[in-house]
């Protein structure tokens, strides 16, 4: 069952009106609710319908020529595979050379694809978010879980925790980003669950974390610690 508030958020999300924090939080909800995903799809289609009410115009024919020219040019940039030559004694060397060229082409292609991916990530908010699923490790309850929506470009994220009972007095849960370029986990702050063991919190690591491999939650002294001391309760990668 989708609440009215969720429906409101879904409508704003479908029209791209949520701010970054709201957007990330809503995407977390989307991951766990097929019903909500269906609603967003319907609302997106409604958005498509609204677009049709713009006064009808056609672009000039020259625009199509321009665009077709661009993609033809891009297609031509892909160098064809070397053709096989007549069979002589030096063929193995030719094959080796061809393979070297091919590997070079693959490397170039990889660079091109990486550039394209970066461009896509720059314009598509969904592509800028990485999701991490955190699973429990002893002594956390077996049904405790957490999901993190992490936006590296913004160096911030949203974590949603469920089924994690409040810690004993004098203790707090603390979130950590495990980054490939940092020796120790980076603190992303204390997270407090409600009486139902649920939390949804926006966080920002205290240091820049550009290559996050995993997120983890540990049990620490009240108020948190600069460097992890306590046991890990939840941990997970992408």
């Amino acid at each position: 069952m989708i609440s009215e508030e969720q429906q409101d958020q879904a409508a704003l999300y479908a029209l791209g009106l949520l701010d970054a924090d709201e957007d990330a939080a809503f995407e977390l909800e989307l991951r766990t609710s097929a019903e909500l995903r269906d609603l967003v799809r319907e609302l997106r289609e409604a958005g498509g319908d609204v677009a049709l009410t713009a006064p009808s115009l056609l672009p000039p024919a020259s625009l199509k020529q321009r665009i077709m020219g661009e993609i033809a040019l891009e297609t031509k940039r892909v160098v064809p595979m070397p053709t096989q030559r007549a069979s002589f004694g030096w063929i193995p060397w030719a094959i080796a050379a061809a393979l070297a060229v091919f590997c070079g082409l693959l490397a170039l292609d990889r660079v091109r694809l990486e550039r394209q991916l970066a461009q896509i990530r720059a314009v598509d908010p969904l592509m800028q978010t990485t999701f991490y699923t955190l699973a429990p490790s002893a002594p956390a309850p077996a049904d405790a879980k957490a999901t993190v929506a992490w936006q590296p470009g913004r160096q911030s994220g949203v974590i949603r925790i469920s089924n994690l009972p409040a810690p004993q007095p004098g203790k707090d849960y603390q979130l950590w980003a495990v980054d490939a370029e940092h020796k120790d986990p980076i603190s992303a702050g204390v997270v407090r669950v409600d009486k139902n063991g649920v939390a949804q919190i926006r966080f920002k690591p205290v240091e820049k974390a550009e290559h996050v491999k995993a997120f983890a939650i540990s049990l620490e002294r009240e108020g948190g610690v600069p460097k992890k001391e306590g046991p890990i309760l939840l941990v997970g990668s992408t």
Partner: protein
Amino acid sequence: MAETSTAQQMLDQEMIARIGRRDQSAFSALYDRLSGPLYSLAMKMLGDPGEAQDALQDVFLQIWSRAATYDPEQSSVFSWTVLLTRSRVIDRLRARGRRSRVVVASTEDTLTGAADASTVESAADTVEKNDEAVRVRDVLNNLPSEQREAIELAFFEHLSHHEIAARLGQPLGTVKARIRRGLLKLRQRLKNL
């Protein structure tokens, strides 16, 4: 598109799949089918033919490079391209440092007088598409005016819900509910046609 048949949606998806395999003829066909509505949207939001054409070029080059990432579970091809277009247009509006100059026109307007005659769609080859647009406009016009107004401000002027609430002098919750109810009603009524 609400009135787009399942067959048309399958055709669109097939075209996108072929574009993902670098099929230029499929790209050309999809351009012919969608450039009109997408250009119309860009014009309505930007109000400048040159900028609208540049935005449309960006969108179609994105379609060419991103066709393989299209996910039919998330939206129809048409709605996906509308999302891409709005995104590119909004980037341009932000770059301009101002909101769209274009006041949301009455949805009764079917053609703008300012449009160059050569850019106005020929009725002969777009009868079906115009029929769709007419149906959607009818349904949109029959929504409660406050819902229609909120949707148009959000969609074409890309005002945030906070900005819409300020402009209309209404509480934020009321504005959110108007957008949500209006969109759901629009979708439902178009489905029932």
